[in-house]
């Protein structure tokens, strides 16, 4: 088997696993297969990274390709997916759905999860804008059932809003793809290559025209939907708050960043063709607006899952700002940001999942005295939150700092001040709610029983925390990898 076949394999494998799940049900064997299919992504990530270090681009029939950025995103997918799949077991044990209905059964859940992972992987390894679009849209469809898995009215509502808003945006991206294709063909590219990202990058300098601008603009706003950027940010909190915790972890930690990765690729085409100005102005506006909105909605938040959803939004806004800046330091920063956010958010959402399982309520007011009722969960919630807020030694610290430096260097001081102000408001709000939840007194009539957590779940969260800490400490390798990632999209000034 050729190394480049690995690209196809990792997309195919989860699909095969979901087929197996359909036929054999969700049992011990298929549960192992789930993990294997995800670990394969990790293996591929390593292989692709090692190959990219020799300047080799893995390619699979003009459709899939792998470079260092791919490897980073795949690695993140592997880590968070593993966490999500392991956490799903507890979730499913606690929340057995109607097993007669496929979409509510354990089997259906596991299948949707695998297809979701396959779709994300496809969006990451795709070298073809059309295929990327297919992958991203497929994530929407596969997660729709996952979001609605709890089968409550709220869950259905969230799923509906999620699918409608995301599809709206993603369809705009499809229109953008068509326009870009037209532009590429007009500039003399063959129809077979006109959507291949790497070829578009090579040919970009010949595509300096209005059609490209329009196409890129539409792609931008389209994929921004999936990143959760303003004005398409409205689905995110609903979907994240209603989805089962492992799904929230995967959506927030990986899916948003995968879409961010697509934006990053598009930004490269944009930089080389129409110049960065229009594209980055639009993206900057969207990113800053997203951060501000997220911060404002955090202030009086009443639901702890929404709280973390908006914190994801805030981090995605920062990533968007980083892409908009587009300089070396900003790109490094956002790559680190993506990885750090993914793992920390994974920890946080899975922890909130365990809390919800015990509490049965996601409102902030219902959760009090967590530090006494479960020191373990409290610890992981703190570790995750501290990571998300950009405290050292976690990765996000470097990410936020670099993006701030990048903003100054591109003379976007006003943007930086707005962003810093919004981050301040966001952090203060999280502190306020966090202190109330961790230490606040239990109200009259609320029960005070301690929460239980399985050793298996503790170990998994511990492993993830350790990983996030190690990544924070291992500066040299993280730098090398982030540099390789930035090189992959042509930023190595």
């Amino acid at each position: 088997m050729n190394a480049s076949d690995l690209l196809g394999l990792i997309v195919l494998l989860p699909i095969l696993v979901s087929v197996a799940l359909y036929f054999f049900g969700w049992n011990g064997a298929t549960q192992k297969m789930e993990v294997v299919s995800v670990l394969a992504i990790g293996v591929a990530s390593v292989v692709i990274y090692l190959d990219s270090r020799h300047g080799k681009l893995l390619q699979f029939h003009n459709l899939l390709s792998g470079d260092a950025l791919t490897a980073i995103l795949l690695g993140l997918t592997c880590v968070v997916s593993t966490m999500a799949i392991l956490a799903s077991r507890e979730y499913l044990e606690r929340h057995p759905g109607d097993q007669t209905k496929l979409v509510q059964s354990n089997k259906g859940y596991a299948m949707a999860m695998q297809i979701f992972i396959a779709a994300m992987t496809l969006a990451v390894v795709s070298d073809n804008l059309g295929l990327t679009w297919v992958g991203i849209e497929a994530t929407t469809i596969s997660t729709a059932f996952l979001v609605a898995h709890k089968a409550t009215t709220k869950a259905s509502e969230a799923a509906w809003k999620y699918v409608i808003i995301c599809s709206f945006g993603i369809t705009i991206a499809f229109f953008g793809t068509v326009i870009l294709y037209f532009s590429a063909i007009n500039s003399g590219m063959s129809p077979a290559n006109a959507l291949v990202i790497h070829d578009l990058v090579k040919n970009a300098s010949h595509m300096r025209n209005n059609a490209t601008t329009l196409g890129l603009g539409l792609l931008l706003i389209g994929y921004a939907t999936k990143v959760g950027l303003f004005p398409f940010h409205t689905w995110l909190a609903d979907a994240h708050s209603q989805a089962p915790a492992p799904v929230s972890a995967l959506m927030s930690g990986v899916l948003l960043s995968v879409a961010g990765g697509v934006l990053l690729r598009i930004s490269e085409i944009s930089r080389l063709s129409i110049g960065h100005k229009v594209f980055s102005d639009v993206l900057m506006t969207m990113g800053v607006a997203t951060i501000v909105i997220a911060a404002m909605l955090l202030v009086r938040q009443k639901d702890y899952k929404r709280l973390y959803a908006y914190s994801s939004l805030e981090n995605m806004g920062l990533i968007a700002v980083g892409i908009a800046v587009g300089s070396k330091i900003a790109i490094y920063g956002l790559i680190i940001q993506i990885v750090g956010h993914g793992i920390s958010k994974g920890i946080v959402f899975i922890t909130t999942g365990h809390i919800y399982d015990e509490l049965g309520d996601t409102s902030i007011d219902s959760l009090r005295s967590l530090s006494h009722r479960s020191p373990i969960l409290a610890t992981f919630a703190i570790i995750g939150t501290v990571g998300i807020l950009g405290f050292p030694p976690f990765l996000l610290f470097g990410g936020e700092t670099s993006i701030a430096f990048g903003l100054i260097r591109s003379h976007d001081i006003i943007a930086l001040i707005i962003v810093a102000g919004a981050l301040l408001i966001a952090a203060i709000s999280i502190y306020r709610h966090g202190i109330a939840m961790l230490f606040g007194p239990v109200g009259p009539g609320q029960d005070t029983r301690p929460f239980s957590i399985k050793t298996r779940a503790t170990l998994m969260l511990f492993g993830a925390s350790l990983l996030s800490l190690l990544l924070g400490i291992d500066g040299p390798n993280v730098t090398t990898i982030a540099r390789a990632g930035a090189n992959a999209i042509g930023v190595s000034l």
Partner: protein
Amino acid sequence: MSVGSFTSLFYFDIGAFLFFTMAIAWRKSLFGQVRLLRANAIALFLLGLLSGIYAKDAALIGLSIVILLVRAYGIPTIIARAIPHSGDQWESTRVVNTTASILIVAAITAFAYILTEPLVALNPTKRIASLPVGVSALLIAVFLIVTRRRIATQLIAFALFDNAISACAFVLTEGVPLVVESGALLDVLLLIFVLVALASNMRSQTQSMDIAELRELHE
């Protein structure tokens, strides 16, 4: 087929495409809208077929047939299942009333001309001259998505949106590569399928088909 006859047929067909789109904006009966969606998809199929015959491209002809199957048959049929067979089959509560809708549609058409001018200038062939028509249809679909309150009409608007993008693709580039178009088709089909499934879920939970009533989740 001569260039002249192809062009006039193409123009005629895309005009029909736009007409059906506009008609959906006007029509209130849900089943009527589904029928118009079918007609719209057939016009799209003809666009593909014409281009395929003109370019002597068998793949394109095959693709148009797939389009016919999925967009003119599959999707409208699924959407029709989301319409309650008893009770309210009318889109009576619109965010924007019918007269205003039609006026806005006219404005959108004008807007589409302005928008597409630089694109048309880029490659001034006769086929691309009809781009404003496709973009008008597309913008009308967007308009429908953001202003329609019934679940079924929202689905129809989505289907229209996709049709319009495909139409634009035919106008611009004789269709996008096969693998992409088929992937997109599959996605749209699945999307509509998912939405219908969710809709039936919601109907069993809330007895409502009005998306404006989805207000449980808010800040």
